[in-house]
């Protein structure tokens, strides 16, 4: 399917523009250009949407509206910001190291950009599905981002920037350990580092999602979430850019388009991290009922048997639906991250490192040990749901001796879904019962001892 798309578009373009079939080099160039456009487009769209959304969420948490002038609900605010940042003066401090100053934003942005390569948006819509080290690649390339931030702080020739850079380096590098260890638990349960395979493995319905594989996987999810907050320099671990302490930390001296690179890097990184959590723990592109996992092999086999436009369209539609689900899950994680930013206060750097080395690291070690023992003692179901076995049939599990696994997964899924559901209901109840409360703070005339102001 992907080959149909990828072969047709460059060929059609070349024929329309130049009137002849493309040669080897031109096909290669068009291929690169297609990927570059789609890639850059997706990353920029994600970052712009997240910037707008962050300001809206911040506004509503702080009892104000947020951007609402540019576009219908302020949706074009990011565009306006982008235009403003492009038009700004390109300011480089006189004593700053010019080359490194210019280099640092690209070093910070490129890893977040490159990590999108491995994200499994849909079974056929992954940029590089053969990347056998998918998860590890994301971890590896995100550790190059530390260098960009350090350079930005150093090259600014500004003491406060250097402080921000140092704190950030300590924080990001130390939190990579619990990050990696939490990822290992999901990998252990799956047996593969390939993110597309991980997605296929979770296609049997909500009880096959890796977060419900064992209680330790749930703990690993929480550990990973906290560690990913720190690794993204995201509140409450946003000391590198602590706005109330260091002006802007390591990117104080950056203005205009260079500053927007750091911003893009942050939001792209948030999406990557949310994407990993969605892919590793929350079922990737699958819906809770296993429908996508059920229909995908059927439609794909139909396409492979008779390749044509008629059989390609259903597969394409399924892929787009799967990509939508994946993006929704990643956006939910980002949403939770935004809540935390505007709710929690900021700890000191020694408290941050204490939390990493003395709390999160032992916790993730214990969780890793527990998950490994669980996997040894509770035999699991081998194979891909709907392809090798039917996940909703009890006999299939019992034949493989995996009854205990099925029972535990269903139990954990029920507990997890009911916890989540009760949270949602609680918020809903608060929202409904809050409507009856009098707005004392905004309506002084209703207060008993209020007096009209005399001018």
């Amino acid at each position: 399917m992907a080959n149909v798309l990828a072969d047709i578009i460059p060929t059609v373009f070349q024929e329309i523009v130049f009137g002849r079939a493309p040669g080897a080099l031109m096909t290669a160039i068009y291929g690169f250009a297609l990927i570059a456009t789609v890639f850059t487009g997706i990353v920029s769209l994600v970052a712009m949407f997240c910037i707008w959304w962050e300001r809206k969420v911040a506004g509503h948490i702080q009892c104000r509206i947020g951007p609402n002038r540019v576009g219908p609900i302020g949706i074009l605010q990011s565009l306006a910001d982008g235009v403003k940042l492009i038009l700004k003066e390109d300011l480089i401090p006189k004593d700053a190291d010019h080359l490194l100053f210019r280099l640092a934003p690209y070093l910070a942005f490129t890893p977040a950009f490159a990590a999108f390569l491995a994200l499994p948006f849909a079974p056929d819509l992954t940029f590089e599905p053969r990347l056998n080290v998918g998860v590890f690649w994301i971890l590896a390339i995100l550790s190059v981002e530390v260098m960009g931030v350090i350079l930005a702080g150093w090259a600014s020739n500004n003491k406060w920037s250097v402080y921000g850079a140092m704190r950030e380096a300590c924080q990001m590098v130390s939190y990579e350990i619990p990050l990696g260890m939490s990822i290992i638990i999901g990998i252990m349960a799956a047996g593969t580092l390939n993110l597309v395979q991980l997605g296929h493995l979770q296609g049997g319905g909500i009880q096959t999602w890796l977060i419900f594989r064992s209680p330790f996987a749930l703990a690993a999810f929480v550990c990973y979430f906290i560690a990913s907050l720190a690794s993204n320099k995201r509140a409450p671990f946003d000391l590198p850019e602590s706005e109330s302490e260091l002006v802007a930390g390591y990117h104080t001296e950056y203005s205009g388009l260079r500053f927007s690179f750091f911003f893009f890097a942050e939001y792209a990184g948030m999406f990557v991290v949310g994407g990993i959590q969605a892919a590793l723990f929350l079922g990737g592109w699958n819906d809770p009922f296993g429908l996508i996992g059920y229909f995908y092999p059927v439609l794909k086999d139909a396409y492979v048997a008779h390749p044509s436009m008629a059989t390609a369209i259903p597969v394409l539609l399924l892929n787009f639906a799967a990509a939508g689900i994946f993006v929704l899950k990643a956006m939910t994680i980002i949403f939770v991250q935004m809540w935390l930013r505007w709710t929690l206060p900021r700890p000191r750097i020694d408290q941050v490192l204490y939390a990493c080395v003395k709390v999160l690291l032992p916790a993730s070690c214990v969780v890793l040990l527990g998950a490994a023992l669980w996997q040894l003692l509770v035999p699991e179901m081998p194979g891909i749901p709907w392809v090798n076995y039917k996940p909703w049939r009890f006999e299939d599990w019992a034949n493989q001796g995996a009854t205990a696994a099925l029972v535990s997964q269903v139990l954990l899924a029920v507990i997890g879904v009911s916890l989540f559901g009760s949270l949602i209901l609680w918020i809903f109840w608060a929202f409904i019962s809050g409507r009856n409360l009098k707005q004392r703070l905004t309506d002084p005339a209703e207060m008993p001892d209020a007096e009209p102001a005399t001018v």
Partner: protein
Amino acid sequence: MDLNAIISGSPQQTSLVTTGLFYLFAIMAGGSALGVVASRNIVRTAVCLLFTLLGVGGLYFLLDAEFLAAVQLVVYAGGTLILIVFGVMLTNKSAFVKFEAKLIEVIIAMTMAIILFGALVVGILNTKFASQAMTQGTDGYPILKLGQALLGDYLVPFELASVLLLVVMIGAAYLAKGRRERSHT
């Protein structure tokens, strides 16, 4: 969107892309190594080293050694280099210190470098290198075999290496802590 499938309808196209990428990564690695040696600013040296390591990582990817490339990025570019940069930044007396080498040091270093270069060239020209990546028996998933080898045939060296790293970590923590305890303020 399979990159190779997009680009390669034929083996010639695949090797065109691979050759181009090889030259890109090789120039990045070699040119940055030159920059490491030739630069007079310590921090720029470290940045050139970063690009050298990234170039070598890219070459590992071209050799189908994906795990090794990712490990190179994590350990070298994301760990060792950060340490080097920390050391450089925290031990600088002034902002942008420059190297000043004496003439006799330059002469000795050049002699040793030329001898080493000659030896390397002779060695490389006389070696029979494999024409493509050695991935037989891995069924396209070499990490499985790597993991089985590390925890199977090579378990003892693996454990010894991790014990060594643990000893290093404990020793460093002890040394750093000892100095603080002695000064009672």
